[in-house]
């Protein structure tokens, strides 16, 4: 109980006395709180965990103490416990991150917790995503130096955060980026980058493999006024495979990644193509963290390269990247993924037949992701892969989106998605799902303050739990207040008791940088994905509320 009060007292203290004092110059802060009260549900079952009331709170403070020196502190409080399915390492109240930073001209040195990314993040990315419970910042030293705005050097060393704890062992890294555009003697840009990351794991040690795993990467990036192309290559040194939850002493393999991306664009048209191949590429600061449910101890960022959807039914069967080696049975062996994605954007001009008065936006996306082709020897735990061989399909998708404004008051978004999801191979369970999804979003602007938005969705499939329908209605009754009701219904579920309405209703109040929300409803269990990272959440029913605010 005392801890709870301590936190609110701290909140009050920081936002009243220090904020207005002259001791700290330029203090800014932000506060975010997500709370829920979980209820029993006659359809989905009783709430069987401890603590019906749960709350996640984040207070971030930043200040420049004296010239060139910055200070940042984040206090987090999970009281009485963290929201459902956050890592047990998030508990009580404490200092989550702190940082002192020195900035002078081309030099930047940070001591404490820092966030960093090398290249596209395939060998290193530390970041924070509160909705997913990710904060894999590194605590240590991070130094950056720039030479003539043309050369950047970054070095770092530290331990990686997991909850309020830190990894045993350390991460060390070096990144360099060179702007070589001058060589080309035209207006195009040419960048070259070389990086290194070393992971030293002190928790799981063995004579069969090295303490240190080394990753090297090289990348080039070219862009002109209508074309761009970039490539990134990664090599990861030999490291043990985790099989059925334990680190193997005999199954030890190298890893690699190839990422190629190119695009063409001119006014009204944009085209993008991506190829990526990952083999045995996941990296955790502690090997044992492999496959953990909470996305803890992730060192590198390997998101799924598919369209990131914003609608509930398009997010039912979401693909998560498959960078790992997994040997489950003779017929379920994986070593990574290979695939492509392509995007086309086209704007149909105003005052044309298809463009109408306001023009029409078209977007097409297609992607296909497969297992690596090769020879897999399940009994001897070994494999050999082909460099460009496409194995069994994990996922494919094609989508068409049309955005059309009809009048100053009315506009539409029409989306069609065709998906194939190999649940057996991706989630290592059973079944394959082929589905067709339609979404129609209508927005009607009553005046500058009032508007109505209606979202209609349908997913049809003969597989898994069959058809779903969904709708959402949002009424913005002033610039500050908004109310909504949504429902998600698996109306063809073969099990009668599972034909459940996942309804939600609630509202929000936002004024400037303050936002308050309240929601009552039933959450669907399953994978919740943001930014290509997914987290498993159990089904739940309850009342939730959130506060987001900043102080200056």
């Amino acid at each position, binding site marked *: 109980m005392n801890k709870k009060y301590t936190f609110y007292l701290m909140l009050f203290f920081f936002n009243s006395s220090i904020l207005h004092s002259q001791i700290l110059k330029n203090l*800014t*802060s*932000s506060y975010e709180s997500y709370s829920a009260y979980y209820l029993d549900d006659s359809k989905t079952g009783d709430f069987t965990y401890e603590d019906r009331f749960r709350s996640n709170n984040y207070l971030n403070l*930043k200040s420049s103490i004296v010239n060139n020196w910055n200070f940042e502190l984040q206090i987090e409080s999970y009281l009485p416990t963290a929201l459902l399915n956050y890592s047990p390492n998030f508990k009580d109240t404490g200092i989550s991150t702190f940082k002192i930073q020195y900035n002078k001209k081309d030099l930047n040195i940070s001591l404490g917790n820092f*966030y*960093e*990314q090398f290249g*596209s*993040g*395939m060998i290193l*990315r530390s*970041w*924070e995503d509160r909705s997913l419970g990710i904060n894999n910042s590194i605590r240590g030293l991070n130094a950056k130096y*720039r030479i003539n*705005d043309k050369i950047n050097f970054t070095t770092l060393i530290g331990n990686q955060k997991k909850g309020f704890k830190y990894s045993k062992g350390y991460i060390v890294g070096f990144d360099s980026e060179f*702007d070589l*555009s001058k060589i080309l003697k035209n207006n195009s*840009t040419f960048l070259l980058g070389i990086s290194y990351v070393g992971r030293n794991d002190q928790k799981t040690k063995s004579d069969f493999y090295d303490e240190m795993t080394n990753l090297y990467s090289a990348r080039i*990036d070219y*862009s002109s006024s209508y074309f*761009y192309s970039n490539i990134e290559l990664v090599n990861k040194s030999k490291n043990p495979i985790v099989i059925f939850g334990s680190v193997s002493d005999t199954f030890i393999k190298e890893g690699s990644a190839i990422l190629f*991306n190119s*695009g063409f*664009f001119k*006014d*009204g*048209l*944009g085209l*993008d193509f*991506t190829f990526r191949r990952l083999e045995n590429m996941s990296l955790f600061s502690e090997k044992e963290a492999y496959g953990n449910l909470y996305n803890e101890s992730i060192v590198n*960022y390997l*998101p799924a390269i598919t369209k*990131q*959807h*914003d609608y509930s039914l398009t997010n039912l069967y979401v693909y998560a990247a498959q960078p790992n080696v997994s040997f489950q049975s003779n017929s379920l062996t994986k070593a990574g993924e290979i695939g492509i994605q392509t995007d*086309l*954007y086209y*704007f149909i001009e105003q005052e044309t037949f298809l463009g109408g008065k*306001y023009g029409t*936006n*078209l*977007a097409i996306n297609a992607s296909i992701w497969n297992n690596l082709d090769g020879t897999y020897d399940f009994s001897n735990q070994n494999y050999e892969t082909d460099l460009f061989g496409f194995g069994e399909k994990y996922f494919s998708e094609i989508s068409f989106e049309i955005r059309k*404004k009809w009048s100053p008051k009315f506009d539409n*978004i029409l989306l069609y998605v065709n998906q194939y999801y190999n649940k057996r191979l991706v989630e290592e369970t059973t079944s394959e799902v082929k589905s067709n999804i339609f979404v129609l979003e209508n*927005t009607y*602007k009553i*005046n*500058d303050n009032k*508007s109505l*938005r209606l979202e209609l969705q349908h997913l049809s499939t003969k597989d898994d739990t069959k058809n779903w329908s969904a709708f959402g209605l949002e009424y*913005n009754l002033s*610039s500050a207040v*908004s109310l909504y009701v949504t429902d998600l219904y698996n109306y063809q579920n073969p099990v009668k008791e599972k034909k459940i309405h996942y309804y939600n209703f609630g509202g929000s109040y*936002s004024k*400037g*940088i303050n*936002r308050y929300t309240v929601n009552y409803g039933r959450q669907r269990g399953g994978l919740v994905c943001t*930014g290509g990272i997914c987290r498993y959440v159990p089904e739940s029913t309850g009342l939730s509320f959130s506060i*987001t605010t*900043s102080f200056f």
Partner: protein
Amino acid sequence: MYIKTIDGKSINTKLTYNKKGLTVYSFWATWCVPCINELDDIHKEIEKWDDANVKIVAISTDDSRTKRRVRPMVNGKKWNFEILLDENQALKRALNINAIPHTIVTKGTRIIYRRIGYKPGEENHLYEFILKNSTVKN
């Protein structure tokens, strides 16, 4: 603080503001429907914004999953805003931005307006705010 241009070059954030008037910084992402709605709604009447002598900077917070979609989307939509990339959200974090869409208006380097979220029609309130606070006229 440094941020990337759409070509991947580093640029000091101090060089991004409008020296002659106000600057609107809109934090968005290719997957954020309300963010795109706001920028689309501004773009549809871009002439009046240009006349108000305001510079619009759209800062994409797309990470490496969706970053490559920024350039084709911006061109496919014919947006002529200045586009910057805040790939690992360093600027977003430095400005205490918790969620997007998030809109900031600055006069010089001083922040005079901030808003979270976007509802249809809010671009008109923003436009009125710009007119009221814009001292330098063409």
